[in-house]
């Protein structure tokens, strides 16, 4: 009987005691939402965003217009007669050199190049970083120094020697050749990423695994790799964007049957015969950029972290 009565009596008694305390607290902590400085920041951010997004807007709008509308000018105007025909053309009809089958083939080639180049580079980079951080073989620092120095040599310098080496090995102009080249050029960054990540792992963890009887591969696969998810994602993003966006290596090493999408795109746009189809060019360009763009939007947080990992810890 007394229980409910008590509760009823206490609650209203407490309420006024709490209320006046809250009021000034709320007033203190609330921030003014629209101060002049804040408005200035938004104006700057919005105009900067508009500046960088304008070309993309122009591309999308142009790719959705028929040619006669484009010839009339007004590059920023919305299409009057919307059409998806340029996109269909770009994907499966436009001429890339001799053949006129669109850049679909280039897309598939790029996938075939990117997937093994990414998986192998990450696998080797992770093992390298793990070995350098934990097992510290004799001369590890010298080895790592050489690897890093490699990252600073311009790719163009290496092209001719690499062409000779590939030709000697008999794989020049093939899928294995282009994957191998991407592996070689991706290795310094991949190794650096994993080495720095594992340098942040307490050495005692490795020692504990050693006492538990773990060997090189077991500690790597069962202890280190399961805790490497963040850096695996970062490495995948970096390698996929790097390989997908590559032009020069694909042009030189991939061979005629494996030309990546970037090379096909260039063939589409630089074709000198016939009239220039701006709408198809735009559609093909967007299609080529779509994968890195999507990757960026889906994993923006990781992407930034990857850039920071390279910048701060390098």
């Amino acid at each position, binding site marked *: 009987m007394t229980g409910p009565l008590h509760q009823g009596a206490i609650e209203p008694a407490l309420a006024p005691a709490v209320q006046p305390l809250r009021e000034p607290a709320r007033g203190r902590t609330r921030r003014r939402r629209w101060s002049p400085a804040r408005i200035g920041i938004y104006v700057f951010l919005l105009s900067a965003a508009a500046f960088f997004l304008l070309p993309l807007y122009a591309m999308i709008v142009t790719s959705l217009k028929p040619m006669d509308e484009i010839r009339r000018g007004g590059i920023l105007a919305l299409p009057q007669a919307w059409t998806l025909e340029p996109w269909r053309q770009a994907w499966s009809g436009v001429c890339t050199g001799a053949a006129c089958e669109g850049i679909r083939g280039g897309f598939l080639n790029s996938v075939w190049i990117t997937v093994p180049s990414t998986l192998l580079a990450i696998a080797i980079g992770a093992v390298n970083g793990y070995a350098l951080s934990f097992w510290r073989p004799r001369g590890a620092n010298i080895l790592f120094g050489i690897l890093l120095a490699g990252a600073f040599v311009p790719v163009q310098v290496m092209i001719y020697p690499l062409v000779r080496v590939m030709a000697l090995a008999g794989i020049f102009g093939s899928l294995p050749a282009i994957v191998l080249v991407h592996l070689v050029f991706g290795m310094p960054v991949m190794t650096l990423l994993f080495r720095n990540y594992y340098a942040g792992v*307490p050495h*005692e*963890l490795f*020692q*504990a*695994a*050693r*006492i*538990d*009887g*773990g060997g090189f591969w*077991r500690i790597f696969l*069962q*202890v280190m790799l*399961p*805790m490497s998810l963040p850096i695996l994602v970062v490495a995948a993003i970096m390698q996929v964007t790097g390989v997908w966006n590559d032009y020069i290596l694909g042009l030189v090493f991939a061979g005629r049957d494996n030309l990546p999408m970037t090379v096909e795109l260039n063939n589409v746009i630089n074709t000198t015969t016939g009239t220039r189809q701006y709408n198809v060019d735009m559609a093909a360009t967007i299609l080529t950029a779509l994968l890195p763009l999507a990757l960026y939007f889906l994993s923006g947080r990781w992407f930034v972290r990857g850039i920071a990992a390279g910048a701060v810890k390098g």
Partner: protein
Amino acid sequence: MANVHLRDLNIRLGGKDIIRGLDLQVAPGEFLVLLGPSGCGKSTLLHSIAGLVEPASGAIEIGGRDMTDAEPSERGIGMVFQSYALYPTMTVEANMSFGLRIAGTPKDEIRRRVARAASMLQLDALLSRKPAQLSGGQRQRVAIGRALVREARVFLFDEPLSNLDAKLRAELRRELKLLHQALGSTMIYVTHDQVEAMTLASRIVVMDRGHIQQVGTPAEVYERPANRFVAGFLGAPPMAFIDGAIDAAGRLRAGAIELAPRAEGMGPAPGPVVLGVRPEHVAIGDGPLRAEVTLVEPMGNHQVVWLRTMGAGGNALGALVHDARVFAPGQQVAFGIDASRVSLFDPQDGRRL
């Protein structure tokens, strides 16, 4: 249970001599504490016993077998690290059983051993948790459990309590001692905390700059420090050192302090000495000496009174007071020193006289 025998051990790391010509015997079932300031080589020594650091020369015997070149996992040791070093992606159970699974121990046996260790360490309810979901004390229990499960012959502890807060540290310290009483295994424990060393050890090894300064029971090391370093390192508040000399009659004069010749046996030869006085051997209130109070530190169950002897070039020394007398800075007091308990050191090399 196994003995550990280190013979003429030399360890070099990064071109520097960390341990030089070290000999040490650890008896089976002993709780040996390696005590010293950071950088004295105690952790390196422990790592070399574990096989994580390769000695430049010398031999390491565990259980009568030469293990100098053996893999860490072959040495029959379990190790507990300061940072817990738990596998972050594995559950408590998987953490404890990792070593056994690698060794290919039968599943039933693994379950039996994990259950036994878990019940000893009150981890039964936490077996399916990940390390991130545990508190610091629980994590260190899991790390101890991982060593227990291995049924190691020698347990190695590398400052296992240093990452815990004071209350938890005292709690886990008592648990470790109980664990040692229950298991009777050989334990080698590295710490820089003299309280841990005094409370846990059956023998303490005091180290400094890669050399063993003294080996002995906690009482021996505390009461009869082998040199000034050991005397100064053990004890809080620390021992006070006062330069003085012994005259031909055997009387000691150090500053304003005068002590009668030692009753028992032979005192040291006349000449300069350093007098070492522990605060508990200074009695305020009775005695022929006079001093001024400079500082009072109340500790709850006792107080530390800091004194400065009267006269020119007065010497500072601390005194423990266990009653409720009230002292104020500036107050003059009489005090006495228990002459039979003081330590005397050689002023040149710091050895005990």
